[in-house]
């Protein structure tokens, strides 16, 4: 029906002077945008199918292809933008809830970009990380200041469950099913090589990856998919997932067509059956229930592993975090409203939750006011885009950060935000064997290692510049931050001063 027609948002531009008809674009596009017409010896493209993932543009050996935003436009309107209008058309046509992938792309403030860092001048020296040790090792887990001594008065180290990270960054929860086997393998191998951790998400742990158990955080979410004794025993830590920044308050849904083969076995869900994670854990309707699950998991693993509780950043986050800190959890992971997802209802993704910077600042402040900050570590996510974001998060009070989207970008993701179709041209968010194979983990893991090695260098440079040679002296060191263009209220919540103060 003509009324349902929507002009494509992006157009494939092919330079006829550069296209040599090698047909690489045609072979590589899972959306079948490109076609070769032998009778005319020409390549043509169907822009309607293009998701702007850049696979063709990056593989084109003669740089003949570019994707541009279509100049085709609605009559300008400051209220009714293209997005609002086309979404109405889509819903009028389908009667369904709109779905989206990856993090909230809307124009909300990014507070990381409104904070600037300090450096030493004259009164104390900066430290050159190439000449002096510069330490980024982090421990996650609660701390105690009680001490014990033996009969000779020597200190007895008290053993607390903990994770040791070579740098304050980990790979956040992305399930096998939402991402491919090869993506998982890349993350697992990179975590091992880097001395950090990756997170299974709620997809279970493929048996091939048990060998990376000491660098694995396994997730226990509301669907309990893939959870069994060996799963828990194999891991270095267990994460109870309460919520996710991209879709606070709702569960998950992996459609039956993706529950095939290994994914079905790993999730312990029959082939072809939908894997539906309920919105709440049906055994957690209140904070005291959470405490029971925390201790059930600790009992099940003989108190050998830290338990994380992951929550989405919502309005009352400080009080919620305070409750979790008293629940016996060792680590609280907070996912901001820009956190990524393989699929979420658009309205929820784009309208629910609060920025991670504000959530982190208020949680850290609140836990300190209550004198319980030492009981837990804080890990933040959604969205950490660079080493500078990591650095600012630590200065605000985080112990470490989770990265998801940044890791996927390193693996080739071009943020086309159509993960929900399952036709990821980069072999990441797909289970189609011919597409999965496009992500060679030998290359993928190396790119992840490269990325975080680079970030760690940058973190060390930033630390050295401000005369700090160990990351723990940066944690919560908010004097190292200054706001630019923020209101007094925002500065108060962040607990920082304005630039120039």
């Amino acid at each position, binding site marked *: 029906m003509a009324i349902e027609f929507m002009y494509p948002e992006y157009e494939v531009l092919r330079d006829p002077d550069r296209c040599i008809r090698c047909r690489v674009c045609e072979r590589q596009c899972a959306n079948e945008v490109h076609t070769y017409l032998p009778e005319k010896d020409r390549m043509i493209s169907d822009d309607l199918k293009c998701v702007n993932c850049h696979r063709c543009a990056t593989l084109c050996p003669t740089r003949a292809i570019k994707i541009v935003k279509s100049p085709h436009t609605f009559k300008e309107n400051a209220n009714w933008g293209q997005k609002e209008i086309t979404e109405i058309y889509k819903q009028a046509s389908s009667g369904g809830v709109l779905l989206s992938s990856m993090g909230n792309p809307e124009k909300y403030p990014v507070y990381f970009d409104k904070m600037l860092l300090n450096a*030493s001048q004259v*009164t*104390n*020296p900066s*430290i050159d990380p190439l000449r*002096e*040790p510069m*330490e980024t*090792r982090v*421990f996650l887990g609660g*701390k*105690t*200041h009680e*001490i014990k001594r033996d009969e000779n008065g*020597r*200190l007895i*180290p*008290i053993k*607390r469950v*903990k994770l040791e990270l070579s740098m304050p960054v980990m790979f956040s929860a992305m399930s096998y099913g939402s991402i491919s086997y090869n993506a998982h393998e890349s993350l697992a191998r990179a975590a091992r090589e880097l001395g950090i951790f990756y997170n299974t998400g709620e997809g279970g742990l493929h048996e091939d990856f048990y060998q990376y158990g000491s660098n694995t955080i396994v997730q226990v979410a509301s669907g309990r998919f893939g959870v069994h004794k060996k799963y828990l025993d194999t891991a270095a830590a267990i994460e109870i997932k309460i919520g996710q920044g991209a879709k606070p308050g709702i569960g998950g849904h992996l459609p039956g067509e993706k529950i095939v083969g290994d994914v079905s076995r790993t999730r312990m869900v029959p082939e072809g059956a939908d894997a539906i994670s309920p919105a709440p854990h049906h055994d957690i309707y209140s904070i005291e229930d959470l405490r029971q699950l925390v201790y059930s998991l600790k009992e099940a693993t003989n108190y050998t592993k830290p338990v994380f509780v992951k929550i989405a950043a919502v309005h009352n986050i400080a009080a919620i975090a305070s409750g979790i800190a008293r629940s016996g959890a060792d680590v609280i992971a907070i996912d901001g409203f820009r956190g990524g997802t393989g699929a979420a209802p658009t309205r929820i993704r784009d309208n629910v939750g609060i920025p991670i910077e504000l959530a982190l600042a208020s949680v850290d402040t609140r836990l*300190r006011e209550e*004198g319980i*900050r*030492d009981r837990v570590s804080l890990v933040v996510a959604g969205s950490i885009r660079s080493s500078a974001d990591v650095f600012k998060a630590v200065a605000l*009070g985080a112990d470490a950060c989770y990265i998801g989207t940044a890791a996927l970008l390193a693996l080739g993701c071009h943020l086309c935000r159509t993960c929900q179709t399952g036709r990821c041209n980069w072999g990441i968010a797909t289970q189609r064997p011919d597409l999965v194979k496009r992500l060679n983990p030998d290359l993928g893991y190396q790119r992840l290692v490269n990325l975080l090695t680079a970030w760690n260098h940058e973190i060390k440079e930033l630390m050295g510049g*401000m*005369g*700090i*040679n*160990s990351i*723990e*002296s*940066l*944690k*919560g*060191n*908010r*004097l*190292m931050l200054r706001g630019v263009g923020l209101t007094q209220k925002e500065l108060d919540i962040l607990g920082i001063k304005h630039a120039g103060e």
Partner: protein
Amino acid sequence: MNDTVIEGQVRIPSGCAISGIFSRSGKRFSGESIIRSIEVMHDRSNGLGGGFAGYGIYPEYKDYYAFHIFYDTLKAKRDCEEFLERHFDIINLSKIPTTKVKEITNEPLIWRYFVLPLPTKLSESQLTEEEFVVKSVFRINTDIEGAYIFSSGKNMGVFKAVGFPEDVGRFYRLDEYEGYCFTAHGRYPTNTPGWWGGAHPFALLDYSIVHNGEISSYDANRRAIEMYGYKCTLQTDTEVITYIFDYLHRKVGLTLGEIASVVAAPFWQTIGQMDAPERERHEYLRNMFASQLITGPFSILVGFSGGLMALNDRLKLRSMVVGQKDDMVYMASEESAIRIIEPDLDWIRSPRGGEAVIVTLDKNASEV
């Protein structure tokens, strides 16, 4: 005072000179020598703060807390004394004796009280005696405007002012005091006229700290220590370092050596080379007390009852030497400050970064 911003309203980094003299045998000596020592390093201060701490100086009142208090106004004095009378048994009170020195101006009222907590108030509070004193000091310093307790230990006292340290020493007639240990500080704050309370040493109970440096971990340390009931009202490095020492030593129960392993922790690569038990202990200390690690340049002298400790930051970004002659131990920013009072030393050396040098009174030291 009204039109300038003072410590507590703004964070003031500063460079400095420090010196300390300690008699292991407990022999008491006059404050004259510490003035001469710090005077040599005149150029390391800029006249905006100087001060001294003396240990063993009040033998006749050694069982009482000696409160040294600055008052900006008579009203502050009245309010403070009213508070003290309600909570403490005041055994003696007097003006601290001073001499007019032309370089020292704008002095506040400076009073000294020897006190003990009232037994009824103490038992009501359910606190230890020391904790009761600490809480009272914090209360006066934050709640009574214009009153500031800058010394609160037993058989020890702090004397400080705005000025060059040698002028401050003469102003307080330090040569008339005798003790087994003195420390001194000359201040070089970088952005304010200085305030008498902001001069060093900074003291809480028997702990006094003189410090040279500007720590980069300040706000991490401050926000951590404030969780344990301390209030960093002055926003100075020395204040937070003092609280960290008080917390780790008095409240947690770490030894001074262990505290050095926390605040100036060895690097991980060094810890990795230690034998297993030692390595485990250091890993444990660095993990559990991560927020008490101090980074950035510092050299500090920590005075406490019966001892003195010198410590440099982990990279030794500030100068400090230690020397000895017979039972006397000398610690200073510069060797010259030691040579001027004892040219003929048994030895002198420069401790490594993070290496704590701790001296205490000999077992058979004379009564102090």
